[in-house]
């Protein structure tokens, strides 16, 4: 599969804020390889707020976290490869369509916004179980296999 654009769930924006994630098989160097191969990455603004909330909690124990989050956000939001999605009417229409799926609020917002791209990288088991909703939902393992990275 030749992926050119990818929508990222909150977990996958954490590494840009100097926070690693415990996803099996994940490493910053492999993630770098993935990002280099993509033309665009898409994220929801709500994910940035989620990431900030999480980093604030970690920041209570580690002094550098808040400073590094800001540094990462400054680079992330200025990079031409990154598209940050605000919540628009078309997203709200999709959100309403997804209401019967019984998803939690944040999941539904991110899924609705990702439908404009057509795919979503997540580790959320509820989202990964969804089928035939117009969005290809994949996890890290599937992404690597389909992009032919790391001998998967």
């Amino acid at each position, binding site marked *: 599969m030749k992926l050119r654009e990818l929508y990222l769930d909150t977990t996958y924006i954490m*590494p840009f804020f100097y926070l690693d*994630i*415990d996803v099996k098989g994940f490493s910053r160097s492999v993630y770098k390889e993935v990002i280099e191969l993509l033309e665009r990455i898409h994220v929801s603004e709500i994910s940035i707020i*989620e990431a900030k909330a*999480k980093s604030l909690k970690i920041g209570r124990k580690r002094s550098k*976290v808040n400073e590094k989050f800001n540094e990462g956000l400054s680079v*992330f939001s200025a990079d031409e*490869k990154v598209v940050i999605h605000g919540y628009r009417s078309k997203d709200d229409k999709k959100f309403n369509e997804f209401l019967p799926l019984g998803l*939690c609020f944040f999941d539904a917002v991110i899924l609705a916004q990702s439908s404009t791209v057509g795919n979503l990288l997540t*580790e959320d088991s509820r989202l990964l179980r969804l089928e035939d909703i117009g969005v290809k939902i994949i996890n890290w393992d599937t992404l690597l296999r389909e992009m032919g990275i790391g001998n998967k």
Partner: protein
Amino acid sequence: MSGYVVKVGKKGELYTPKKLRSQIGLDPGSEFIAVLRGDEIILRKRKTIINLLEEDAIATISEKEVKKERGMLEKELLER
């Protein structure tokens, strides 16, 4: 203070010595942020998201923690 002589072209191009270019990674197409400080110009290499991933993380969080945070934020938002 030692420094390099950088000449300015007709259209404002800065001609930098090779030694300086290799020292700071001034490759064709790379971008720098120019900061004016009095009569000084400070050139700072513009970072990309790829550069962010080349640096070490300062903490690790679990997928479970991300999910928990989402639940807490959602509760706070919907119960306001």
